[in-house]
């Protein structure tokens, strides 16, 4: 009891759990956002409309080559401070910055989701789509009912990697003042003389988030795999 208090007393007065909770929220919202947008992008990239294919390709190649920090800072400085985009935040900086961070993370991560999914789509034999078309299903029905369900099952593991990367990437939101784990860590390192311990605590916190994600999705991946 004693030893624990002495070693960890630097934690006192900091809302460690609160900060990690923000990290979790950033991750979950951005994961959902990027999953939806990434799926739409993948649909565009394999679709029959040249304009959409071109857009999908250009989007992925531009976005995944821009540093995330630039995207997040642009969201804050460009969208919010210059264009007054508040995303319904009603003037509340904390809310606005959180939402902008989710937007930036989603737009960025969607490029990776799209590419993972596209590789999954490539694992689905052409005969599957042909049989579906021959039944009279429309392009979107073929994609939604036949191709994507099989593609998703094939890429659970790559998507898990994207999710783990996203979890760690949420730390970039600190750059625009979102009080998540990395923001708090910087605060604490500046205030306390415990660099190594503080870093270890935060590293451990992230591992607690990402390790179960990887294990769970690894199990899901085996469970849902399509047998051919």
């Amino acid at each position: 009891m004693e030893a624990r208090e002495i070693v960890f007393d630097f934690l006192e007065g900091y809302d460690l759990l609160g900060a990690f909770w923000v990290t979790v929220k950033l991750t979950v919202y951005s994961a959902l956002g990027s999953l939806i947008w990434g799926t739409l992008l993948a649909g565009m990239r394999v679709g029959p409309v040249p304009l959409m294919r071109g857009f999908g390709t250009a989007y992925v190649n531009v976005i995944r080559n821009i540093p995330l920090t630039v995207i997040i800072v642009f969201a804050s400085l460009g969208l919010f401070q210059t264009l007054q985009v508040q995303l319904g935040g009603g003037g509340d900086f904390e809310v606005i910055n959180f939402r902008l961070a989710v937007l930036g993370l989603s737009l960025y991560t969607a490029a990776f989701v799209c590419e993972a999914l596209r590789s999954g789509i490539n694992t689905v034999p052409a005969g599957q789509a042909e049989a579906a078309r021959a039944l009279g299903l429309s392009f979107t029905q073929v994609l939604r009912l036949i191709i994507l369900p099989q593609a998703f099952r094939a890429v659970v593991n790559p998507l898990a990697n994207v999710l783990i990367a996203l979890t760690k990437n949420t730390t970039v939101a600190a750059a625009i003042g979102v009080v998540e784990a990395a923001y708090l860590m910087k605060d604490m390192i500046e205030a306390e003389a415990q660099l190594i311990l503080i870093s270890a605590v935060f590293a451990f916190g992230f591992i607690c988030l990402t390790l179960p994600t990887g294990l769970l999705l690894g199990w899901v991946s085996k469970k849902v795999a399509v047998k051919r």
Partner: protein
Amino acid sequence: MSGVSVTKAAEDAAPAGADLVVLSNVNKHFGALHVLQDIDLTIASGEVVVVIGPSGSGKSTLCRTINRLETIDSGAISIDGKPLPQEGKELARLRADVGMVFQSFNLFAHKTVLENVMLGQIKVRRTDKKLAEEKARALLDRVGVGVQADKYPAQLSGGQQQRVAIARALAMDPKVMLFDEPTSALDPEMINEVLEVMQQLAREGMTMVVVTHEMGFARSAANRVVFMADGKIVEEATPDQFFSNPRSDRAKDFLSKILHH
């Protein structure tokens, strides 16, 4: 038998003998390769046409142009009097009327056998789920795989999968069925179970275009044999005429090869 009708209800079926599928002067290229050359072919309602010919002669391509899985460069194709429309809603509707059975079965791998046979009914025909299931089960019984309804395709033998694929196509009440080498991917002992289902369909008056090298099937079920070589229809005859007395040298040559193996 289950009493499920597989041919279109009498009122909207073309009268037996009327032209159902008409290809006129159809041409298609794959790059420089002229795979279909001036194809004229008319298939009457209720007719069973077997297409045979050497590998690469364009049989699959011909079959696939009929429901526009392959586009054509020139000429015209019409089904039940309607020309094939451009890609879109109307084409999808027309494809629903043309059943297709593939060499590699192509059952939806992530869906059960039953779901495979229900999907088109529900999503294309907008049939009520319960009715779709009843019909799917009846069709699966008909092709002899009723007990496999809740399995996934990969758990079935090739012969069983192909019979499910036939049931899936029949569930749409097609006006015509296209078969592209339906037994070529099967182990010999499974070929007959599939051919028997096809024989029965033929007897019930289904209009069928069948690419196959199964001479027994051609002799017993076909009204007409179409022989293709190098993208052209070289010869058309009744099975008897064709097998016992082929006119063209290409056909004689081809038959001597497949009959003596």
